[in-house]
């Protein structure tokens, strides 16, 4: 059976689970109950969603076992599209339209398959096994001192972020629908970047993750360098160096763990259940290497500069990907690997991480208030959002970590919405600085409405995804670091309020003559803005169903943390 047919078969099998959806409702607080730890039993021996060694199959109603390729399809559909468009000409408008269509089709296919898997996971709830979530596990490199696996899983943490990634990329392709210059290069690089991000999110083998993570470097560099605004040379170089250094630190840290674990495997599940403990010195060194690697892409002080610069300089679509997806990928890596692999070291470093979170939050406020352009302001708001995630890492428990993951999703969606709106506003006002904007609401009321909604989403207004996330973060971290929690929360609120104030500066006040002919949102813009709005509301309203699914991905981490206390 061809891989495409198998993918369809897997998707159909996932769809069959839909009737269970109604029975899957569980209250929010039940989901955030700390994971059970068995007295006297080492936490590493508890069942783990990533430790299943058997290859995944999709059992059909006929009893035929087929290997699931759904996750591979999600990851590599965009690569296939990139390879196709490389060979397509782009001389005429029709040819360029064909290239855009192929890119959009691949992105939508990935999004739909991800949504199907998420629906399946929600319907199965906490009982979902890796097999049911289309885990793929095959040995890739066996004849070496350690075995490397082609191991893709989609537990709750991954799925939420995968939805974020595929949705944001789809929105960016839609936003680029009218692009006429160098369409092939733009779409090809974005597709490769999507492969890298989705692959990193699904990979549970350390080497595989590192490969996908490092794959971001070249497409991102070229996207900033080729399609950015003034100052793109420096911004692109900074981004490339930061990501290269990050990748190298990550690989070194991972190798230290693999070599010292004695597991002879680079699979996360095998490393977590390795019988031989990693020497403390090696584990501490590896923790700081991995922490620094992800910290470089995390928008925290002092490594935030390249991200703020890149977000401000890159084209609107690329900036959306950076702030909406790439920054969140680093957050995911921090939770999955820095915390998951080194729970004891992470807890020892808790105070230092907390100080870093407080500093980042404070600096985020200063930066947000001091910015003169919209993009920089939005990028600075991300610092506050990510300092909340960092605070959860400083005080890790099931509640705070579930909140952190939900915050990554909510923050990613709101940042993406804000940056796409920035692009729309810049297109209408020719990138005028903040102090020269005003009165746009008269001509573009819908645009103003979207902007205010996005600001509220970033603030964490009730009924939106950010609200549940911040509530859980507050509940989870307050008991451990009460003052820091209050400070970071307050700082984030101030920073976002400054963003909300920007709505008044941009949209209200007297109509300026130069913007008198500004038009409101077009149908094309609505096509990529509405889905982001819908998902922000959906994640907010359905938090009670989503959080249990996220919790399935945090079981192992929570169990390890329980064991180190």
């Amino acid at each position, binding site marked *: 059976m061809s891989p495409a047919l198998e993918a369809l078969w897997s998707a159909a099998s996932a769809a069959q689970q839909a009737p269970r959806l109604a029975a899957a409702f569980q209250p929010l607080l039940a989901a955030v109950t700390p994971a059970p730890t068995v007295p006297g039993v080492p936490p590493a021996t508890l069942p783990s969603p990533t430790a299943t060694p058997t290859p995944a199959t999709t059992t059909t109603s006929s009893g035929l076992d087929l290997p699931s390729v759904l996750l591979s399809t999600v990851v590599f559909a965009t690569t296939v599209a990139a390879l196709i468009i*490389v060979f397509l000409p782009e001389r005429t408008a029709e040819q360029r339209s064909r290239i855009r269509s192929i890119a959009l089709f691949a992105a939508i296919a990935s999004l739909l398959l991800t949504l199907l898997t998420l629906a399946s996971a929600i319907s199965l709830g906490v009982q979902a096994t890796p097999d049911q979530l289309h885990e793929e596990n095959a*040995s*890739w*490199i*066996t*004849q*070496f*001192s*350690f075995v*490397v696996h082609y191991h893709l899983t989609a537990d709750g943490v991954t799925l939420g972020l995968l939805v974020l990634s595929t949705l944001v990329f789809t929105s960016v392709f839609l936003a680029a629908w009218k692009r006429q210059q*160098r369409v092939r*290069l733009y779409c090809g690089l974005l597709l490769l970047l999507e492969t890298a991000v989705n692959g990193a999110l699904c990979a549970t083998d350390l*080497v595989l993750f*590192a*490969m*996908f993570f*490092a*794959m971001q*470097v*070249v497409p991102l*560099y*070229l996207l900033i*360098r*080729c399609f950015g605004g003034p100052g793109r040379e420096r911004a*692109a*170089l900074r981004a*490339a*160096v930061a990501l*290269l*250094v990050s*990748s*190298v*630190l990550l*690989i*070194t840290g991972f*190798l*230290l763990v*693999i*070599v010292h674990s004695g597991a002879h495997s680079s699979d996360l599940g095998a490393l977590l259940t390795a019988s031989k403990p990693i020497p403390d010195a090696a584990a501490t060194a590896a923790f700081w290497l991995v922490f620094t690697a992800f910290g470089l892409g995390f928008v925290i002080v002092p490594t935030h500069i390249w991200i703020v610069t890149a977000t401000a300089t890159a084209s609107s679509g690329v900036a959306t990907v950076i702030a909406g997806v790439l920054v969140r990928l680093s957050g995911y890596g921090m939770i999955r690997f820095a915390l998951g692999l080194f729970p004891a070291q992470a807890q020892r470093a808790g105070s230092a991480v907390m100080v870093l979170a407080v500093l980042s939050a404070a600096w985020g406020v200063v930066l947000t208030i001091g910015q003169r352009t919209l993009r920089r302001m939005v990028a600075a708001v991300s610092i506050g959002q990510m300092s909340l995630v960092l605070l959860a890492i400083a005080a890790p428990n099931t509640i705070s970590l579930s909140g952190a993951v939900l915050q990554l999703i909510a923050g990613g969606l709101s940042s993406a919405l804000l940056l796409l709106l920035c692009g729309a506003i810049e297109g209408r006002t020719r990138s005028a600085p903040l102090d020269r904007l005003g009165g746009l609401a008269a001509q573009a009321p819908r645009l103003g409405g979207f902007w205010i909604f996005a600001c509220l989403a970033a603030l964490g207004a009730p009924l939106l995804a950010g609200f549940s996330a911040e509530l859980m973060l507050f509940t989870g971290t307050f008991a451990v670091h009460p003052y820091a929690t209050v400070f970071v929360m307050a700082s984030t609120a101030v920073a976002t309020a400054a963003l909300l104030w920007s709505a008044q500066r941009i949209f209200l006040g007297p109509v300026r003559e130069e913007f008198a002919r500004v038009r409101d949102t077009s149908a094309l813009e609505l096509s990529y803005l509405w889905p982001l709005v819908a998902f922000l509301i959906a994640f907010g309203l359905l938090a009670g169903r989503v959080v249990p699914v996220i919790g399935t991905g945090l079981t192992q981490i929570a169990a390890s943390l329980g064991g180190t206390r």
Partner: protein
Amino acid sequence: MNGGGLGILVGLLPAVMLGGGALVCAVVAAVRPRTRPSLYRWLTLLATAAAFAASMIELVAMRPNRTGVGLVAYGGGLLVDRFHVFGTVLVCMVLVLTVLGAEAYLRRVPARAGAFCALLQLSSAAAVMLMAQREMAAFTAAFALLVVSLVLLTAMTKTSGLTAEAAFRQVLTGGVALATAVYGLALLYGATGSTDLSRLAVGVGVGGKAVDGPLAAVGMALVVIGLLVIVGAPPLQAWARHVQETTPGAIAGFGSALGAVTGAALLARWAVEGFGAGSSRWTLLVTALAAIAMLGGGILALRAGTIRKLIADLSLAQAGFLLLAVASAGRGAGSTATAGATALLFTLISAAAGLVAALLLAGIFDAAGLSPGLDSYRGVGRRAPATAAFLSLALLGLAGLPPLSGFIGRLLIAGAALGAGAGWAVGIAAVAMVLAGVAVLRWLMAMYADDTGEAPFAVGSTPLAGRLAAWTAAALGLLLAAFAGPLIALAGGGATALH
């Protein structure tokens, strides 16, 4: 099995095939000087196929005993094992890619086609012979043959005065390398009383005398330095840079790739197997030189002003990684040593393919009239998209960026080095990787971002076969990564034989 007359013939068969091919080409060129170049090309491909088939026969012959050793002749002086077979197949791959990629050069100078193909095969035969040698006298003879044939290959191109200078430098450096290695071997002979490397490996000389002391140490160091010259690693790496910068793409690619493959394989054979695993005498020297090569190559690549300089600098860094793998194989014990040798053999495949691809593709742009400077390459991504894309792939592979096989090779080397306790060298390797990555990004930026708006140009001056060979070599970086598992298994088989 111990070789009798027939066994020795089987052991030497790949080299005999290639040597025979060289002889036929030389005779045809002498008797019928106006023969079409395509005939030489076909003869070379035929000889390569025969050598490959002979290697497979050797592999089948050594299957029953499972030790990876197929033939031991001349009291251990000639050793045909899986390591040798792996090296032979690698040499055949480089030869085929070069012969196909050199079509443009052969069309330009048809009169030299016979000599060119003969020298390609002769140097390949010497390389294949060398990888099976553990006897000092035979090693010296094959080493000399390799150096001389590579020098002649460079010298015969005569495309410019710079090529002649490169050949002259290669003669001088090759001579120094040969002399250094021979002097080192002489000292080792003095220490052991035998020309058999296996005596050195067990640490017992003729008459039961223990092999130790300064004589053996200096001898080892000299042999290592002699072999490093062939790899293109410090301290005598300048010749490799000149050859890569000045000779036609096919010749530069062949010389660099064959040098890297043969030199690294010989180092592994002589140093790891001969000087003994766990030795700190030579491993410290090789690790230090590896660090210098990795870091030096990365730093130089940052400022490379021409595409050839960039490739030369990246290949210097690549040589450093190869040396780190050799040192890891030598420092470690048991599985760690095998991991180092496995990493070396896998990296050799990707390094050879990457070097040949990059230099062939640079040659295609040369032939299209593009000067090698950075400014000329601005906008090439739009003007010649396919060739530029493959060149990008080759450069990224040489820099060791994911998802290409160069990255997997570096990962394996870093894992082996950490296992062997060379953490500081892994740190330097990490820095070198970043530097090489930034250097390649600088060129990609010129190719894709700095579009000057000039009209597209045709790369049709290079025949289709030549372009296909270059593209295939570049695409190998991706394919080798996708099929890394089976390839590492093969490399592991070769590595097991080494110990």
